[in-house]
């Protein structure tokens, strides 16, 4: 069995500087399946990413497709590359990031196999567990496909070490340019705080924050804790914060050591994104709020008094 993992990468400014943390979790899932693990790095100007991928513990080969047509990993161009490579593999895995979710179903359909989305555990090389219904049920699914195409929920697997491996680099793949799509531009949110999905502490605000300006209370608490800041859909829809901060079924899935929900009622869709956190703290003035049903520690209080006090005491 040989497994192909599609790498996501970190981009700083215009440069691709390393492998995304979610790729380390995906390699961990591949190790659970067992077999040789190869990583595909597709993009343009990805030499540093390929070098970083080669150092990941447990990776035996890194395939590098460095070509202008793979810039921004447009699925119309990257999917045929993966399809071309896939015939030699038993499994093709990608992290369930925006990028992985965008590309992999296209690959699966071209291979004429079903895809299994967002696995949270590996039972055997063909059997996996995945949450359905916003995490209110866990399905165990078995695939008889010759090539198993899978996206991996990063929070389900502990990351492998980013250092310690010494995989060989191999450049691969003809340039596939479908000529159907092009990159126009991007608007990336800038943040000095830890990345939401990888942070060990997350502080999130909801509608109870009342406005975007009040999020400054959460930012200063987060900075003191070294935490990332998240939000509920209500806070995003109300324009308090940008949408890439949304935690939930349709936003990001997090499972930090500590999740502090401030002014968040705890709708099913929000819980889907954070209920696997180790410790959940809820601060809400409504003692009937559903969030208290999943919180390890609940504090019924006005957040505008509790949050500054909390910041002082931690």
């Amino acid at each position, binding site marked *: 069995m040989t497994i192909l993992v599609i790498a996501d990468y970190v981009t700083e400014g215009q440069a691709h500087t390393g492998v995304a943390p979610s790729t380390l979790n995906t390699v961990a899932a591949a190790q659970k399946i067992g077999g040789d693990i190869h990583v595909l790095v597709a993009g343009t100007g990805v030499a540093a990413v390929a070098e970083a991928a080669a150092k990941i513990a447990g990776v035996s080969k890194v395939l590098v497709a460095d070509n202008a047509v793979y810039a921004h990993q447009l699925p119309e161009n990257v999917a045929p590359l993966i399809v071309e490579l896939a015939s030699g593999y038993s499994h093709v895995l990608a992290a369930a990031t925006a990028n992985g979710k*965008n590309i992999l179903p296209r690959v699966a359909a071209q291979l004429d196999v079903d895809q*299994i989305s967002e696995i949270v555990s590996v039972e055997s090389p063909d059997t996996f567990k995945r949450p*359905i*219904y916003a995490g209110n049920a*866990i399905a165990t699914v078995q*695939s008889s496909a010759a090539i198993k195409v899978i996206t991996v929920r990063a929070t389900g697997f502990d990351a492998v070490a980013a250092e310690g491996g010494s995989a060989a680099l191999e450049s691969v793949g003809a340039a596939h340019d479908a*000529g159907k799509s092009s990159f126009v531009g991007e608007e990336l*949110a800038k943040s000095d705080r830890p990345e939401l999905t990888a942070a060990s502490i997350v502080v999130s605000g909801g509608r109870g924050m009342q406005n975007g300006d009040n999020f400054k209370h959460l930012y200063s608490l987060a900075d003191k804790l070294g935490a990332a800041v998240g939000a509920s859909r209500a806070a995003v829809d109300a324009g308090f914060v940008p949408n890439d901060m949304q935690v939930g079924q349709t936003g990001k899935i997090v499972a930090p050591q500590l999740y502090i929900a401030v002014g968040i009622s705890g709708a099913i869709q929000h819980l889907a994104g954070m209920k696997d956190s180790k410790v959940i703290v809820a601060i809400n003035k409504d003692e009937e709020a559903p969030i208290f049903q999943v919180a390890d520690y609940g504090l019924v209080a006005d957040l505008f008094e*509790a949050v500054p006090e909390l910041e002082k005491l931690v």
Partner: protein
Amino acid sequence: MKVLVAVKRVVDYNVKVRVKADNSGVDLANVKMSMNPFCEIAVEEAVRLKEKGVASEIVVVTVGPATAQEQLRTALALGADRAILIEHAEELTSLGVAKLLKAVVDKEQPQLVILGKQSIDSDNNQTGQMLAALSGYAQGTFASKVEINGDKVNVTREVDDGLQTVALNLPAIVTTDLRLNEPRYASLPNIMKAKKKPLETFTPEALGVSVASTVKTLKVEAPAVRSAGIKVKSVAELVEKLKNEAKVI
């Protein structure tokens, strides 16, 4: 241009689902069903394109049981012109659905196909991408803005660290994210009018599509239950617990 919109009948998003005692699935008997929220956004976007004079006809399609007609009628009441039901009682995989939709795309030749980014029951987030692959079209997934620009469509996409805009050649596939628009409600007169709009029914066999799957669900379980927490009385007590009991800060 003709716009095709795919919708799905799913358990209402407010329902807290229960797993069946025999672990064969989720209990959907006597549970409120609705149009998947992302599909509502897809219908709304198509209707807005028609109101702007960009779309000339909106065809709405679903794959599901006979009762999924209700969701098609809802879409017709919201502004779709006609509907297609591909009747299949059992739940299909995304690939099965994508193959059926591909057959409809071949028949209808739309310029734009709009789907939701995921259904809130299976949470797969696959069908749009798979349909794009099977049709050979470009895909604009997780769209928060859609602008038709001559023979191209510019799609602004919600990605992990912000927004990305891509230009796609038409025909193309777009999947909707939550912030694309705010879906309208159907008015009573429009609900009445929708009953008279055409609705065609097909079977997978009639479309010549095999929906055989390579994936089998072995069992469905309830997630692990979190042990009950405690209410603390003050911030000081909270900090003390987090430091000494939970040891997370």
